[in-house]
């Protein structure tokens, strides 16, 4: 092996690689898509092949190694082929990926470019995006609210009543298994121990955020702040004097 590899002029290979690098950088300046594709990815394949064959000496390596490495590449193609129909495509037989379609439609305006001074704010803005894309999923609520006020009662009945009960008494069908039990909004003792802010936070960020049961999940992704305020107001109507 050492005999053969001495025939390789490494500096020459390196020079070719640098020239190819220049080609791949220059390619996009033509502004023609297929030229860019060739200069970017075609050249990358050629460069990789030069490195693998000459620097890694694969061309004088035993055949079994070529087989092993070839197998890994075939497997990656296989993975791509099996996964792309679901992940790359946004619709197929009897399904559509609404969130992805909405993201493509929105384009880049919301998807990036927001100048965030710190990471925290960026996260916050992404959450807004979350809500936008989730919109289709909560279309029925949108339908109910289209052009009119947010219907807190309807929202309560679809979202909260599972556990808290339509009467707000904490005896919904989902309450059976829960421990601690869901809050009973008819109980005036409940209202004496909570502030509105606390309830707002519990709805938006979940029970754990205010030191209550983690079984109360966060709804900040589904409802806007105004809607949550409306929900808090609706909850108060359950209170028995």
């Amino acid at each position, binding site marked *: 092996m050492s005999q053969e590899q001495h025939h390789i002029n490494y500096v020459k290979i390196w020079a070719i690689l640098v020239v190819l690098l220049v080609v791949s950088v220059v390619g996009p300046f033509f502004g023609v898509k297929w030229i860019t594709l060739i200069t970017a990815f075609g050249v990358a394949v050629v460069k990789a092949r030069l490195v693998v064959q000459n620097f890694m000496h694969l061309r004088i390596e035993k055949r079994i190694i070529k087989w092993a490495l070839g*197998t*890994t590449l075939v*497997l*990656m193609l*296989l*993975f791509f082929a*099996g*996964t792309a*129909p*679901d*992940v790359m*495509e946004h619709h*197929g*037989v*009897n*399904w559509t*990926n609404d*969130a*992805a379609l909405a*993201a493509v439609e929105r384009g880049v305006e919301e*998807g990036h470019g927001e100048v965030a001074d710190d990471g925290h704010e960026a*996260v916050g803005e*992404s959450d807004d*995006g*979350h*809500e*936008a*894309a*989730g919109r289709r999923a909560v279309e029925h609520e949108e339908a109910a609210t289209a052009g009119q006020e947010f219907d807190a009662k309807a929202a309560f009945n679809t979202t909260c009543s599972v556990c808290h009960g339509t009467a707000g008494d904490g005896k919904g069908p989902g309450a*059976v*298994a829960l*421990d601690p039990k869901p809050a009973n909004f008819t109980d005036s003792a409940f209202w004496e121990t909570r502030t509105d802010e606390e309830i707002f936070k519990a709805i938006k*960020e*979940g029970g*754990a955020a205010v030191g209550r049961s*983690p*079984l109360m*999940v*966060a709804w900040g*992704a589904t409802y806007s702040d105004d809607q949550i305020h409306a929900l808090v107001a609706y909850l108060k109507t359950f209170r028995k004097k």
Partner: protein
Amino acid sequence: MSQAVADVQHTQEHHGPQGILKYLWSTDHKVIAMQYMFTGMFMALIGGFMAYVFRMQLAFPGVSVPGFGVVSPGEYNSLITNHGSIMIFWVAMPVLIAAFGNFLIPLMIGADDMVFPRINRLSFQVFFLSVLVILTSLFVKGGGFGGAWTAYPPLSASGAYNLTKLGSSLWLIGVALEFVAFLLGGINFIVTLMNARAPGMRAYDIPILPWFIVLASMLFMLSVGPLIAGAVMLLFDQLLGTGFYDPARGGDPLLWQHLFWFFGHPEVYVVLLPAMGIVVEIITTFSRKKLFGYKIVLYTAVATAVLSFFVWAHHQFIAGIDPRMANIFTVTTLLISVPIAELCFVLIATLYGGSIRLTTPMLWALAFLAEFLIGGVTGIFLGASGADVFFHDTYFVLAHFHYTFFPIAIIGTFAAFTYWFPKMFGKMLNETLGKIHFWGTIIPFNFIFIPLFILGLHGQHRRIYDYNHFPELATPALQHLRIVATVALIVMLFFQLVFFFNVIRSWISGEKAPRNPWKANTLEWTTESPPPHGNWPADRMPVVYRGPYEYSVPGREDDYWPQNSPT
């Protein structure tokens, strides 16, 4: 003889530390094998305890389980999640691949150690770290991860959904560390088998077990890569708030399912192949027969390994993948039944014309075949997309894969453990106790899982901590089946005491084992029991003259013919 002893002392002087450190910091493949074995068995006890707790909850909902207390829904999810993860990643893999692979590969191919003893030690240390991480994850604030061993996002990606922010991240880190440990170990196995074989040992003279363990290591190595990348992405989703699997931010939850099952299905064969290899060794030895078609076995195993990469999406038929893809994956999934059936046929055919001795290891090996067949044939129902619409995520699935994993991880391990115990510890196990333990495990095993098949046919789905919320499933008849399964489980766990008693008793006061108690051919039986450091004296390393399964060769006095015997 004195020369041999001198050699042993000679090699010991050059290797590693002495005293207790010899066992904690050793690079000897046999010590590392024991470390993996005992860690794996310890984890099996934890996994078994978890099974006991949630089976009690299912049979007697709301009861205060002795030794645990009342099981809350969150705890229940955490128990089933970690039972699955532990039994696959911390029991089946370390025991079947790492422990037996480490112990047997160098011995069976006539080498003195693994080719990279220090990487081998590092592999165990990383694995041990992963054990600590996964055990820690059970006790952190919020409890252990409860999103099932498949860890589908978005549930696993966000603390707001799974309520176990810390537990799910630790679980993921633990699994990732375990992968790293097995990548290190796997490279060692593969290179050892490829390069370090005894002089004279050609590719087709290697016993089937080392072949299969190495094939499994390759399968693991080639399938786990995308999942490692996926795990990094999931970890970023959990900790940094990226959106790789969040549909609202351009990600896709289905991507994880593909990444997971691209690994997850080959993983089944990663643990199946070593168990099959163990059965091959035991069946040939105790039926005194040459393996029926060595090359058929090898090639069908390779075919299975290759095909196993083409079937992954059968776990996702109804998970929202494009229904057209389901057709392709149905075809490939059913195709894989051909090589697996062939392997079973060949093993059964090996019995033909034999002289079968029903020792404890042989009973375990035959039980593997008998029980694995049930797991195999029930898989056809699940691979057929049309039927999977009903069966997906029911107890039928659960019973099916326990009928594959239990024979693999438990029966296969007991088969190997009882077969190689004399070589590992230099003592013979008690046969009577061994057989009591065998029947005390096999009979309850069927009583656990056959009721679960029936429950699955009733449409009972998985991962529910109390079926009283579902009127169709809350009937007394179904509850009786659940109780039968739970009682059988407790009986089975109880009989494991017999095993531990047998092992400890034999270890302390058992009959001393000769070099080759079973009159087997492979190289590990040509050295002392237990083998010294370096396995053979350095100047008398074995040389191989023939294949591993030359039993009952006509014209020979003995019915076995060791691989290293020149005549």
